[in-house]
């Protein structure tokens, strides 16, 4: 009994460590692949790990006109909330560890926390560049949350209308009944539209590619992070890595939760082999989404202005997600 109680925190700790490592690895992979697209050699894949070690060894400077405690607290909140998020998500394709203690609505709120922490850190640093960056981050958040909410509603509505006796807002339900298997061809197209929506939001959430206005290096010289250094910046790097993990896991958990394990179990393979197959399949999906949603988009577009980005999210992205919702509901009427 005691060992079982100890088991869960240990698995949780392992999982968080893995999330950090996977996140940093994929940050490196993203840089490497982007470099290859741009006919450069690029940094080694382990570069983010080296950056982390270097940053931790560097001096941490708090500017004179910053609000010290808030300035130091922001990166901690960013990392802590991102880590907490991992525990509520089906990372590695297994059911979320804290699945009994909160549902998808909580996840949606937790998703906002790292972004808020970055904005707070930016405001607290008292630098004009950082303040502008923080404003942009908040505006971006207001923009990409709506398509995301529509997407969650679409998936939850479809699943719970098919299985009213199951809990609608939990990932284990989606894992049992992946939304792609519940819909016909029309609804399938709707789900594809939803995947497009969430991949667009992915870049904005991770402050990458065409939506990196809060950090915009040529405009704001790093924006929200301009005054951060040393340990604080290392924490933001870590939270970036974990956020990458969390967000892609969310995409997988919501829209592509199909697993190989079920297939294996029908062939009588169960136990460790099935779990291993699941994890491998999870990483295949993870890699595809990371490269398609992040690296491809990053190298293929110029940065948008903040008003253009907002307009894009409220008109195009919201439109696509609503169309997806409409198609899924049409599908269930047919």
């Amino acid at each position, binding site marked *: 009994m005691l060992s079982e109680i100890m088991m869960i925190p240990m698995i949780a700790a392992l999982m968080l460590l893995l999330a950090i490592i996977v996140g940093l690895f994929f940050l490196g992979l993203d840089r490497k692949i*982007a470099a290859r*697209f*741009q*006919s*450069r050699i690029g940094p080694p894949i382990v570069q983010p790990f080296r950056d982390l070690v270097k940053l931790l060894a560097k001096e941490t400077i708090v500017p004179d006109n910053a609000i010290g405690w808030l300035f130091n607290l922001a990166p901690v909140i960013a990392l802590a909330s991102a880590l907490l998020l991992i525990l509520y998500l089906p990372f590695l394709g297994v059911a979320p560890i804290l699945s009994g203690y909160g549902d998808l609505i909580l996840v949606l709120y937790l998703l906002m926390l790292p972004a808020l922490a970055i904005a707070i850190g930016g405001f607290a640093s008292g630098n*004009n*560049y950082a303040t*502008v960056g923080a404003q942009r981050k908040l505006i971006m958040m207001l923009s990409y949350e709506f398509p995301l909410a529509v997407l969650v509603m679409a998936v939850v509505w479809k699943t719970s209308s098919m299985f009213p006796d199951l809990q609608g807002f939990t990932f284990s339900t989606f894992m049992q009944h992946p939304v792609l298997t519940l819909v016909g061809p029309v609804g399938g197209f709707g789900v594809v539209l939803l995947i497009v929506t969430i991949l667009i939001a992915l870049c904005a959430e991770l402050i990458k590619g*065409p939506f*990196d*206005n809060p950090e*915009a*290096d*040529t*405009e*704001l*010289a790093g924006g929200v992070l301009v005054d951060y250094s040393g340990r604080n910046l290392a924490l933001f790097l870590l939270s970036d890595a974990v956020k990458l993990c969390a967000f892609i896991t969310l995409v997988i958990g919501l829209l592509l939760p199909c697993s190989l394990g079920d297939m294996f179990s029908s062939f009588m393979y169960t136990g460790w082999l099935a779990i291993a197959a699941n994890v491998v399949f999870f990483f295949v999906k993870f890699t595809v989404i990371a490269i398609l949603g992040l690296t491809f988009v990053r*190298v*293929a*577009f*110029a*940065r*948008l*202005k*903040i*008003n*253009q980005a907002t307009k894009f999210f409220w008109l195009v992205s919201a439109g696509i997600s609503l169309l997806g919702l409409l198609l899924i509901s049409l599908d269930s009427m047919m």
Partner: protein
Amino acid sequence: MHDAYKMFLGPVHPALEEPIFFDFKIVGEKVIATNLKPGNAHRGIEALGMKRNPIQVLYLSERICGICSVSHASTFSRAVEAAAGIEVPERADYIRTIFCELERLHSHILWAGLLAHEIGFHSVLHYGMKVREDVMDLLEYLSGNRVNYGVYVIGGVRRDIPKEKHEKIRQSIKYYNAAFEKFKDVFLNDKTIRMRTEGVGVLTKNDALKLCAVGPTARGSGLNKDTRQDWSYLAYGDIGVKAQLPSQVTGKINGDVLDRTIVRLLEIKQSAEIIERCIDQMPKGSLVSEPKAAVILSRLKNAEGEGIARTEAPRGELHHYVRLAKKEVVDTWKAKAPTYNNLMAVPVMMKDAQIADIPVIICSIDPCIACLDRVSIIEGNSGKSMNKYDLHELCLRKSEMFGKIERGHQ
């Protein structure tokens, strides 16, 4: 009414390749006032030049700027030749033209990459760097150097471009033409690039005329103005250069960043054509008017007169003024870079711009601060730089002092 706040850009900032200071007044994301203060890259090159003989100054002039090194050497040598009445052989003129145009090629290609960098499109930046590398290789192949070519001498050129080297040049020109097509496709058809450049940083034809804009900045606003066309020099008269206007591609002139981009892209193609025609038409003859440097030097020592030369550098019209006064050294030397004119247009372009437009607009005039900074007035060691009001004050005080002295004598 929202509160306006100040934002400084520079002297060191990722959007700037060279040090210059901008001071913006901003409401929200909108720029409402722009001020700028150059003077951080001043090195006193002209003062150094006035302590050396013209042949030594030629090397110095190449080092005013890394990217426009040919333009400065070309303009200075022509100014000295004009002052001393030295004729340049025709073949040397053609070789000088080829180097001028190669410089324009690599400058414009680099610029196209930099513009993409400013708008966060790093793939195009790296493509630009890759293409530019080929121009640099060609320049190294022809002159032995990548940045300061050392090809110009007073009265001609140092290195010949023999027939064997023509094949390599032709190959490279084919490569640049392909690169031009690709750049044109990217900059004209990419949606995100158009979103960031169209209607941004508008400089009307009237404003461009009033602010004396030069080079691609003026042509982007529809001024039919090109030193190679209007005041033909070197071999350009034989070749017949036409100023490239954005209306050739889009049919209209807006004077925005996109138009300035189109002008520069068209000039990539034009430069490739000029180089090709230079190779085809290159006359036979000697490379220098006088092979012995000592003879040239003694002529320059005994020369008296003024020379002025203007060149269409990649960024616009470049002036050099030289006065020789039967001395060992250059008596007076003054260089005026195109960025001096174009930078004045930046505050006008910044009207109604967003913060996101600031680096794009600054980049769109292709500022070259090392060329621009010809003067920096500093009071003692205090680090305080003086503006025109301070200088006026100084002048008044000095007049007062002279008045006192005169009264004292009486």
